[in-house]
């Protein structure tokens, strides 16, 4: 009987209910869109800010290092200490391994470049990097950490894959200009010990052949550099397995006061808490633990701007959501007030049949709840779609994410119960005043007027 009553009375007063339902729907849509954005926005902002570099750098702790370097034929830019490339696998074993989104090791050395034996020779800061390097289940490398890099041509591949045993090299745009080199050109490169300069060409034995596979334009230091694969660089520098610096990009929790504490000065319990939170500091700490001889630090600026942007955005979103829900509650209460008023006689009759106030209230609340559920689901779907569209339009292009993938992400099942609960709260809050006033009415007076 309750269900029958609920269903039949639900189907009545369509216009008022559509009005109230629409209000809930719009409120829920706004909230779903906001929450949907808020949950994806952290990831997306992180990706966006990754343009400016990694948020953790790892470098060798020079004083305690004992790296077995073959022949010290080269003077590396970072001093004599190196990390082991094979140790980078250990990053995958740290507590917050899954938060690491990119790893880019580098080995730097100054090399001499020339178009040919009789051409001008210049000294170029050369960096060996990972390109499309398998790491865990995905691939990573310098391009992933530097999405803003603009490349013409292709990234270098390890030299055995290039015909004639040549090295593949990408030149910074300035270097390419100075050398007068274009994609596809053969160039010579050699280490700085083999001093060949413009006046006295170096003996051919000291020089290696390389092919320009791409030209890089970043508007930054890289324009004055040349890029090789890390393996090639290690080969050229005769530093097998050596890495002079590693950039790590990790999803982190915005820094707070606790994040800045020194873990070794904390109580064991606090230390555990600190350790198990994805602060950049904690991740850096775990990297230090995992990789022997490594020092790791967060890159402050990026980290903090990420945190503040997220904070501001989420604050704004809460405000908008609260306003949308409040507006919905007001609209619901207006619609319910008239709806209940129109049914005064019905309420009076139910009272005359001995229905308690609680039972009548539960009937009306169930009706409001049903409306909230229907409008809530509608709002969830609509809001998710809007969130996806917004995400795509704000971030889509830069992050290179297709709308369809964003759509898929947008339907966050965790949000559904949350927004349904909110819809329910709005509906109940909006109808409470009118239901209460209806129950306060004198049933005898209502029945007398015979509305």
């Amino acid at each position, binding site marked *: *009987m*309750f269900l*029958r*009553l609920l269903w*039949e*009375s639900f*189907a*009545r007063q369509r216009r008022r209910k559509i009005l109230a339902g629409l209000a809930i729907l719009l409120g829920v849509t706004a909230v779903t869109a906001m929450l949907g954005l808020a949950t994806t926005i952290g990831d997306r902002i992180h990706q966006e800010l990754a343009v400016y570099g990694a948020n953790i750098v790892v470098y060798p702790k020079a004083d305690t290092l004992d790296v077995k370097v073959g022949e010290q034929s080269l003077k590396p830019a970072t001093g004599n200490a190196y990390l082991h490339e094979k140790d980078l696998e250990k990053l995958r074993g740290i507590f917050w391994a899954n938060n690491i989104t990119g790893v880019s090791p580098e080995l730097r050395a100054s090399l001499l470049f020339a178009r040919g034996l009789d051409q001008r020779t210049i000294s170029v800061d050369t960096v060996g990097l990972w390109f499309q390097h398998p790491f865990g289940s995905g691939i990573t490398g310098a391009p992933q950490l530097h999405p803003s890099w603009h490349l013409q041509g292709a990234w270098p591949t390890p030299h055995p894959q290039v015909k004639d045993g040549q090295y593949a090299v990408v030149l910074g745009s300035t270097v390419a200009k100075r050398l007068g080199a274009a994609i596809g050109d053969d160039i010579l490169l050699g280490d700085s010990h083999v001093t060949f300069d413009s006046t006295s060409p170096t003996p051919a034995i000291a020089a290696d052949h390389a092919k320009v596979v791409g030209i890089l334009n970043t508007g930054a230091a890289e324009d004055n550099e040349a890029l090789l694969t890390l393996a090639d660089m290690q080969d050229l520098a005769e530093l097998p397995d050596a890495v002079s610096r590693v950039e790590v990009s990790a999803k982190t929790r915005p820094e707070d006061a606790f994040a800045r504490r020194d873990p070794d000065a904390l109580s064991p319990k606090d230390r555990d808490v600190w350790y198990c939170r994805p602060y950049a500091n904690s991740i850096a700490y775990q990297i230090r633990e995992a990789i022997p001889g490594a020092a790791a630090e967060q890159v402050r600026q990026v980290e903090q701007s990420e945190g503040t942007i997220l904070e501001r955005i989420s604050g704004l979103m809460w405000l908008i959501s609260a306003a949308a829900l409040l507006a919905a509650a007001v609209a619901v209460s207006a619609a319910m007030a008239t709806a209940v008023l129109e049914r005064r*006689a*019905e309420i*009076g*009759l*139910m*009272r*005359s*049949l*001995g*229905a*308690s*106030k609680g*039972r009548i209230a539960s009937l009306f609340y169930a009706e409001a709840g049903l409306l909230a559920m229907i409008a809530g689901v509608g709002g969830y779907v609509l809001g998710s779609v809007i969130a996806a569209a917004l995400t795509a339009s704000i971030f889509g292009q830069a992050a290179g994410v297709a709308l369809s993938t964003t759509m898929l992400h947008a339907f966050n099942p965790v949000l559904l119960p949350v927004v349904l609960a909110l819809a329910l709260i709005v509906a109940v809050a909006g109808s409470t005043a009118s239901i209460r006033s209806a129950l306060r009415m*004198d*049933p*005898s007076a209502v*029945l*007398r007027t*015979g509305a």
Partner: protein
Amino acid sequence: MKMVSEAQRQHAEAMLEHAMPVIQLVGVSREYASRSGVVRALDDASFTIGAGEWVAITGPSGSGKSTLVNLLGCLDTPTSGKLTIDGEEVHAMSGSELDRFRADKIGFVFQQFHLIPYLSALENVMLAQYFHSMTNADDARRALERVGLGARADHLPSELSGGEQQRVCIARALINDPPILLADEPTGNLDAANQKIVAGILRELHAAGSTIVMVTHDPEMAALAQRKIALSHGKVFCHPVQHVVVKLAQ
């Protein structure tokens, strides 16, 4: 009709005491506070109604008939005085106790029928079962058959004539076997033919032992009752003792 003397009234009450009072009013008043001052819709009413009695309440418009019926039906509580129904002191009950009491003891028949428009005749009857205890479609159907509407059980109120709607209303009032049936102008909105049908049903109910308190303007309907209580300006004005005595003696 003339004002009854105090002695006559006491005599009548003494007589009725034997008839096991279901309803007893002692100095019951109901006042409404309105903008233009306090309205005494019912003024110091004292009388009893015995079990199985059929009482007609008469009086001019605004004399307090509906007020009295609402008090008897526990939809309203007296401003002062004692109201006892079926041995229980209604004036002292809490709101939820009154709800329960109303479901158990009172069946209402309204002038405006007050059927729920989106429920069928059968469901309207079942609604009373629902708020009382448990719904039972067979019982509800039987109640409709009793008022001659077995064939119209699945019709909506809008598909029924006024007389048929009133019969649904009576079936609904009867479904929980309440000891008291309160009817506020049950035939006020009906034509002569339908009034006759409703009168017939009420007569059957009375014969079956129901206590009926009925407000009516219609002398014909009032004549069906065993006793009349006349109201004027909120006062129980006329108490035709002889009539009661005669009826009781029959």
